[in-house]
């Protein structure tokens, strides 16, 4: 991990040369959730390919662009699309943008993803506030010699997702009549979807939804001392005893349809950051 520090400085300097604001929050937009950027007063938009040390997004419906500007008057930076372990990238580079957000001044990370719902009380299109996670990726972005300038060797994980922000988001959801749950996200490496036996296993160990992202970024945000709020959009239901094949394009469609609700909640959470 020791090589990261200098790279962070390099990338930070590059982004500052294009955008001089100090972001209050960093936002990572997952599958189908890119349209949220339409709400941003864009001051700079940079393709990942043009940013030093950033990886390209190869996943479906991930635009691969860093959008800097104001959301409801609050300076933020948003990643339109992310990278995943299944794309073959090392986790410490997948999570690199989070370290850059922190270095630029953001102390809040807003993460979102499309996920499979396993809790039978959830419905397709529902939003779940991530209350906690289980890391089954078989990997960790903090492997290697720790750089104490970036964070502690053994980060505590007793509250990776800020409970105050979860409560704020849930109360906004009630006010706006949006169905929102609070539950446990389990991260698997993918890229195949789970077998029926795996869904039973994941449900048994206490997870409500399953996805292939988010946990690495959250681990790095906690390592960096950032607060985190995480939104999962349930884009397909994974009931092992009546399982239908998942269609990635259908997933994108459902995520797109749910995106306005996500935008409402994100805007509401950020309103409290002013």
């Amino acid at each position, binding site marked *: 991990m020791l090589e990261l520090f200098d790279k962070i400085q390099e990338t930070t300097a590059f982004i500052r040369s294009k955008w001089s604001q100090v972001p209050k929050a960093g936002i990572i937009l997952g599958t189908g959730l890119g349209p949220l950027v339409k709400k941003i007063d864009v001051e700079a938009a940079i393709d990942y390919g043009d940013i030093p040390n950033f990886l390209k997004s190869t996943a479906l419906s991930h635009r691969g662009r860093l959008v800097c500007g104001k959301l409801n008057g609050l300076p933020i930076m948003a990643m339109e699309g992310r990278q995943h372990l299944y794309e073959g990238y090392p986790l410490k580079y997948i999570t690199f943008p989070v370290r850059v957000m922190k270095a630029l001044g953001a102390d809040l990370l807003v993460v979102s993803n499309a996920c499979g719902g396993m809790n039978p009380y959830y419905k397709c299109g529902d939003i779940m506030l991530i209350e906690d996670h289980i890391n089954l990726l078989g990997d960790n972005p*903090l*492997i290697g010699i720790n750089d104490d300038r970036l964070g502690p060797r053994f980060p*505590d994980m007793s509250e990776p997702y800020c409970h105050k922000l979860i409560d704020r988001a849930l109360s906004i959801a009630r006010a706006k009549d949006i169905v929102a749950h609070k539950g446990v996200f389990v991260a698997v490496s993918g890229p195949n979807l789970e077998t029926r036996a795996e869904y039973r296993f994941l449900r048994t160990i206490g997870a409500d939804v399953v996805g292939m992202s988010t946990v690495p970024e959250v681990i790095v945000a906690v390592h960096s001392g950032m607060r985190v709020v995480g939104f999962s959009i349930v884009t397909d239901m994974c009931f092992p005893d009546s399982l239908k094949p998942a269609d990635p394009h259908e997933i994108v469609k459902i995520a797109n349809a749910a995106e306005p609700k996500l935008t409402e909640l994100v805007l509401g959470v950020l309103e409290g950051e002013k």
Partner: protein
Amino acid sequence: MNVASIQSIASASAEWLQNQWTGRPHFGIVLGTGAGEVARAIVAEKVFPYRDIPNFPVSTAIGHAGKLVCGKLAGVNVVAMQGRFHLYEGYSVELATLGIRVMHQLGIKKLFVSNAAGGINPNFVSGDIMMIDSHLDLMFRRAQPTNFWNFERTTGLRSDQAYDQPMMEQAAACARRNNFALHRGVYVGMLGPNYETRAEYRYLRRLGGDTVGMSTIPEVCVATELGIRVLGLSIVTNVAKPDSLDPTSGEEVVAFADIAAPKLRTIIEDAVSRN
């Protein structure tokens, strides 16, 4: 790295050590976080910082001094690794377990491995010690299987077969005599380096784990391969109560490990002196 090359690397380190220290140890000891008191109980004849030993990696974890202590414990020749190598430090499985192969070359037949672990069995109390009866490997890391494992020697062995029942009985008797609690249970190995989330603690408990840590399993797998008998000792440094979890810090772990250190020393000294 294949089994021949890792063995020759270990042989080179062992040969260098034998030129400096002529003792033939019967026991090896791997001292985990905070268990330095056991090392201090050893009458050291030679101490080798890892950086001086050919081929040895250098330990980067807090609470780990990073030296090989050679000498006598209760009058018996021992070799102790004070500080170990963890997979979260970025070492390969082969390199992280090199010390076990080196101690094997020096002649050890029995190994004590200690670690600082989170208690997930709610009956445990911080500062307690648990003997590892078996383990769950959730580290997601393997040595190169076709090259690394010596199949002729390991065929049919379970990786937890090295945990020695007679050594456990002896340790349990020693704990009774000295009036302290010594549990027996299942150690879960995680990759780390972050501590577990509440959801992860619940999951590991449901799987049947009693303690959780980030070490020991790779070492025990190699000990199994080499036919070394093992007594695994988990120091419970913080009991995780997932429904009211307090933050865990590395410093706190070291502090509770220090409370358990005298008990660890008693168990190991007793076992060594009976041989």
